[in-house]
């Protein structure tokens, strides 16, 4: 118990001290997670929409494959991306390994299936009359899609929250592709893993609490949208 209290107090101390190093780590974490979530939305929401929208040959297989990708271990993603961007890989020349970009690529692969799957689930439950109404009122395909996505936003926003939570809390990919290089690719979670490895459990959990506080802040913001979605 002491341990948890210590951690919590240390977390407060960390925030209070506004340590430069901590700020850099937080900033890297937020930046990388935000970008990968954004890309996942840009790819996953339209993809989910297209898959949910109409029946086509192989649809069920595609959904099953997507569901399978949800169980993709970060180690596999990490090594998979590694195989491409390491010096010997075909994108080796771009010098991506151990950069934030590498983390973003890996995390993107991790969460695109999440956003897509839930977009499909959310859109499938939306009454077909919304589509018909939008179309008959003169909306084009794009505007119709927006209407449907708008109606499904409660589910879609939930999937974005899950995806964001997944990447900001993710450690494997960040470690493998980012390399946990101090000042460059050290994120909250890789820092936590490091402190944990060092045996600095209190510091590790303190960092975790800082992360959760950050995430709480983000969610108050998200919740504003999800609340609006309920009108």
């Amino acid at each position, binding site marked *: 118990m*002491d341990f948890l209290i*210590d951690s919590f107090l240390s977390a407060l101390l960390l925030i209070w001290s506004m340590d430069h190093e901590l700020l850099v780590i937080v900033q890297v974490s937020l930046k990388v997670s935000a970008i990968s979530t954004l890309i996942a939305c840009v790819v996953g929401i339209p993809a989910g929409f297209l898959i949910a929208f109409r029946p086509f040959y192989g649809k069920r297989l595609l959904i099953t494959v997507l569901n399978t990708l949800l169980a993709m271990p970060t180690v596999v993603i990490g090594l998979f991306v590694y195989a491409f961007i*390491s*010096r*010997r890989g075909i994108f*080796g020349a771009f010098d991506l*390994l*151990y950069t934030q970009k590498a983390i973003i690529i890996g995390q993107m692969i991790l969460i695109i299936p999440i956003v897509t799957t839930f977009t499909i689930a959310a859109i499938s439950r939306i009454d077909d009359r919304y589509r018909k109404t939008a179309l008959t009122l003169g909306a084009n395909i794009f505007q119709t899609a927006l209407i449907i996505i708008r109606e499904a936003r409660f589910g879609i926003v939930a999937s974005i929250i899950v995806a964001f939570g997944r990447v900001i809390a993710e450690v494997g990919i960040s*470690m493998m592709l980012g*390399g*946990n*290089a*101090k000042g*460059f690719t050290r994120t909250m979670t890789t820092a936590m893993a*490091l402190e*944990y*490895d*060092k*045996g*600095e*459990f*209190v510091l590790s959990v303190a960092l975790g609490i800082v992360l959760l506080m950050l995430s709480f802040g983000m969610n108050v913001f998200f919740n504003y949208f999800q609340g609006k979605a309920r009108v």
Partner: protein
Amino acid sequence: GADKLLTMSTTTSTENSGLLDVLLPQLEKDTGIRVKVIAKGTGAAIRDGIDGNVDIIFVHAKSREEKFVKDGYGAYRLGVMHNDFVIVGPEADPVGIKDKRSAAAVLKAIGKSKARFISRGDDSGTHTKEQALWKATGLSIKTVTTEIIKKGKKRKVSFQHPVGLGKWYFSIGQGMGKTLTYAEEKQAYTLVDRGTYLKYKYGRKEGLDLEILCEGDPELYNPYGIIPIDPEKYSHVKFELADRFAKWLVSPKAQGIIARYKIQGQQAFFPDAVPGAK
């Protein structure tokens, strides 16, 4: 600037010890070189060198390091320093190894009495050392091999352990810190590097509930080497910087810093290039 940036793969223990945090700032002050440190298991760290992902590696697995250089990945190897391993166990010491100096004899006693022993089992430097020690005990050793395919050809990946895996010998495949806590939890024996042990024993509020029971056997020495990647193999590596860094590391100044570095009041690393450095 960015062109004075080196990427270095090293083992987690090097980074965790905190030694790099005193060495690297001094390096930057002296040479302007900044180092991007990627810490991972010894195997993975060497692998980074083989794949040309880094400019220099700083690890502790002497035989593998030498092979690395021989295979043409490394330009050269410089011995930098060593620390040493110790065998720890519960204070009660049920096997009674406290008086033995020879590490092999200690392990033999543990194996004979089937007292619990925790192995890192992760192919790290520590694990490599441990395997060698078990071999020296003369106890029967089992080799587990898994066939995989590399470059289109079948290859075997092997792993050795004394008979009794899962009964008294636990292979947990984790880092040093985790192995220590695991051993504490199970009140078992284990092989650990002194630096990590000191940190866990004295660096935390609830000190580790394990004692050093065997130390000082030269077999337990753990040498660290630095190897710049050979520019003939990978033309993109910043060999010049790497070379300067490696040379700086064996300079009296850096060796002095190493000698003066203390964990919980005790010297953790012993310079090898300039043995008398202060």
